């Protein structure tokens, strides 16, 4: 195995610091002054980030691929031996750096954004708790610690989505998120149980070493991977469990940035990448993932075309990008998927934070039909937003281009039709993102409120840092085509088992890239024409739309279908159970027990008559019984 690296126990501090921050801000909730909670929380996450960087260098210098840090021996029953341990290897370090790095920036941003809220201390406590859970998730060395983090992020997502709980619609959204996550968690738990039965262990290293001896296509492995996929579907918002993500925009914008763009929704992808060895043994599941990812990507992109709320557009774009990542996973390109996770974290967080900046400036307005012309009023926000939009569209040399291009070329190797679909989705993505950009920042000011201003420094500095990362982040993983050496993918090679494919010829690759760039440029021009030159504003809510746009604007009525198919029958079932079973059988039964006891008591009370002769009689009877008892035994 691995010999222990000195000072590796530093790794314990990484999740411990946010936990400490949570405890401090949570317990001292009423007493913290203005910015103190935010500073404490950001410092905690920031220190975790620095320690993660230190761990990165330590691991590299030690020359080993992985290190395990055990906290304590958690469950030891018979053959079941589960330590509460952390696995520090290249994959977990990557995720740790993303979580703590982007997390620190978002925490700092929130100091400015949540400044006026009266529950700001709870907010930071919950954000720190979320960071702690997410770190547990990515650092766990076995499926159970991962699951603890999994549940923890689900809980914090519920708390943070419903942060402004006075509004019942927000509460509904939070509940919806939690319930949908739970549906996925059921599959996940079943998968873990099956894993334990098959491999007699839940620790990654033990499972993977046993699995590499198994055959491809074993039914048990296929079942396990499918069940784990169900869990990932719930957490990472794939079809059919994606409807919670757009509704989750009810939470504050930093929450959307941290949880629903950069970290929590990528937990499913992390989990599948971690189990790459298992997934390589189940080609059926990989095909399912391809179909699922592609369908989600296209579906969400189409819906995003017609949304009018700035955050909903970004939400559907997140779902679509997650579909891309699943597509990469299904193609066996696990490190590519993680690469896309990284770049997506950068530009999506940036997009959300920029949207938050806009909302903050517009005094809470989120409808893009009422915005416009903010380019001059908020230059920094505009520039960073532009950088992120270019990144997400896949324009070189921004980061999104590198990651998306890798996915598309892997798709092309698999089948050209897949490539075509992927390219189509990329074009749609580009269109609706630039639609968003143009409608918000260009044109004339359509809002009733006429005083948009630039955000304070505490909010713009994180924006700038993320913009820089979005621009240069791609250079982590330059393919051989441009003379690079795929640093990122090679780094991850020790942790995930990406499928090796034959290299495409360079000419094919260059041809594909040129094709995509040309088409993207065309889309940008078309969007510019539509939204800036001709100034076509999307119609208001009262206008009756023709059929197809109406269906798309109403999200293909998926929410309504779910409500009719799932929620209403459950409502009827629970009503029925309440009236017929609970009221008539269960509640009286429980009451009966109480009544019975008091009746027995009344009966026994009659024994105390106060009548002396009766007492004497009772005494004699008692002695009689006693003697008989002694005699008989």
């Amino acid at each position: 195995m691995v010999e222990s690296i000195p000072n590796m126990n530093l790794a314990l501090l990484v999740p411990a610091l946010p936990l400490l921050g949570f405890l401090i801000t949570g317990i001292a909730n009423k007493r913290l002054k203005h910015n103190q909670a935010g500073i404490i929380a950001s410092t905690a996450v920031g220190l975790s980030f620095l320690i993660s960087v230190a761990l990165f260098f330590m691991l590299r210098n030690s020359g080993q691929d992985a290190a395990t840090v055990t906290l304590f021996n958690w469950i030891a029953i018979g053959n079941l031996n589960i330590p509460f341990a952390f696995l520090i290897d290249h994959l977990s370090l990557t995720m740790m750096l993303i979580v703590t790095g982007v997390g620190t920036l978002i925490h700092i941003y929130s100091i400015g954004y949540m400044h006026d809220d009266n529950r700001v201390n709870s907010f930071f406590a919950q954000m720190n708790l979320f960071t702690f859970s997410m770190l547990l998730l990515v650092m766990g060395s076995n499926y159970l610690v991962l699951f603890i983090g999994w549940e923890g992020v689900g809980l914090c997502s519920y708390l943070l989505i419903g942060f402004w709980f006075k509004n019942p619609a927000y509460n509904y959204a939070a509940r919806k998120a939690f319930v949908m996550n739970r549906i996925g968690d059921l599959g996940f738990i079943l998968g873990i149980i099956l894993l334990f039965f098959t491999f007699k262990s839940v620790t990654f290293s033990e499972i993977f070493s046993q699995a590499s001896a198994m055959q491809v296509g074993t039914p048990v492995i296929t079942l396990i991977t499918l069940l784990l996929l169900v869990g990932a579907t719930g957490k990472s918002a794939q079809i059919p469990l994606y409807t919670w993500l757009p509704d989750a925009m009810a939470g504050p914008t930093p929450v959307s940035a941290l949880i629903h763009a950069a970290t929590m929704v990528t937990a499913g992808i992390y989990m599948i990448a971690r189990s790459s060895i298992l997934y390589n043994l189940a080609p059926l599941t990989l095909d399912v993932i391809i179909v699922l990812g592609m369908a989600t990507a296209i579906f969400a992109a189409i819906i995003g075309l017609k949304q009018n709320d700035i955050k909903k557009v970004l939400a559907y774009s997140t779902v679509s990008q997650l579909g891309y990542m699943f597509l990469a996973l299904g193609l066996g390109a696990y490190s590519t998927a993680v690469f896309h996770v990284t770049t997506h974290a950068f530009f999506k967080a940036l997009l959300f934070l920029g949207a938050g900046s806009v909302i903050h400036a517009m005094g809470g307005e989120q409808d893009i039909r009422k915005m416009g012309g903010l380019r001059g009023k908020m230059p920094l926000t505009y520039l960073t937003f532009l950088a992120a939009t270019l990144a997400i569209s896949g324009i070189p040399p921004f980061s999104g281009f590198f990651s998306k291009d890798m996915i598309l070329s892997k798709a092309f190797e698999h089948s050209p039709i897949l490539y075509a679909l992927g390219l189509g989705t990329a074009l749609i993505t580009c269109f609706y993102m630039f639609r968003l950009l143009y409608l918000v920042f260009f044109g004339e000011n359509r809002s009733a409120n006429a005083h948009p201003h630039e955000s304070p420094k505490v909010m713009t500095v994180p924006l700038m840092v993320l913009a820089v990362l979005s621009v240069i982040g791609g250079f982590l993983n330059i393919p051989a085509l441009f003379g690079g050496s795929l640093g990122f993918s090679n780094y991850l090679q020790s942790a995930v088992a990406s499928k090796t494919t034959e290299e495409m010829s360079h000419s094919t690759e260059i041809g594909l890239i040129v094709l995509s760039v040309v088409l993207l440029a065309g889309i940008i021009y078309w969007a510019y024409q539509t939204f800036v030159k001709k100034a076509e504003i999307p119609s208001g809510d009262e206008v009756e739309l023709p059929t197809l746009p109406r269906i798309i604007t109403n999200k293909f009525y998926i929410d309504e279908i779910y409500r009719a198919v799932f929620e209403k029958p459950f409502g009827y079932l629970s009503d029925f159970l309440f009236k017929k079973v609970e009221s008539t059988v269960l509640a009286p039964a429980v009451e009966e027990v109480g009544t019975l006891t008091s009746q027995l008591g009344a009966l026994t009370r009659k024994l105390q008559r106060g009548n002396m002769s009766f007492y004497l009689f009772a005494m004699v009877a008692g002695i009689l019984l006693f003697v008989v008892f002694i005699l008989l035994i």
Partner: protein
Amino acid sequence: MVISGLFVVFSRSPINSVLSLIMCFIAMAGHYILLNAQFLAVVHLIVYTGAIMVLFLFVIMLLNLNKATIPQKTSVTRIAAAVAGGLFFLVMVAATRHTLEITPRYPFTSKIGLVSEVGKTLFHEFLLPFEVSSVLFISAMIGAVMFGKKDGITKM
């Protein structure tokens, strides 16, 4: 002895019951002498017949309880009581049926009933209970005196 016991239970007037009880005690004293328990026999006569029964008689006469004016118990109660008592008798008999096999523990001495022997045992092995019983007596005396005082208790 059994017949006088029956008289104690079933006689109408309390004075008759007292007299039958005295007769029973005298018979019992005779039995003590038969068992070579001379000290016990004499103490029995003095304490029980001489003191306790006299006390009973005093109380009956003082409080004029001789009239058998108290209504008897209901039939059901009497039958139940008879059944209980009878059952008890039967059970005890059954319990003590196997006393045939008792053999004496110590070698036979004819001296155990003598006052000196009883006194020796009393003051050697049972000294503490003897002293404690004096405390018992004092408390009984105080209790009796306290209960007997008239101090304005309201009638029920």
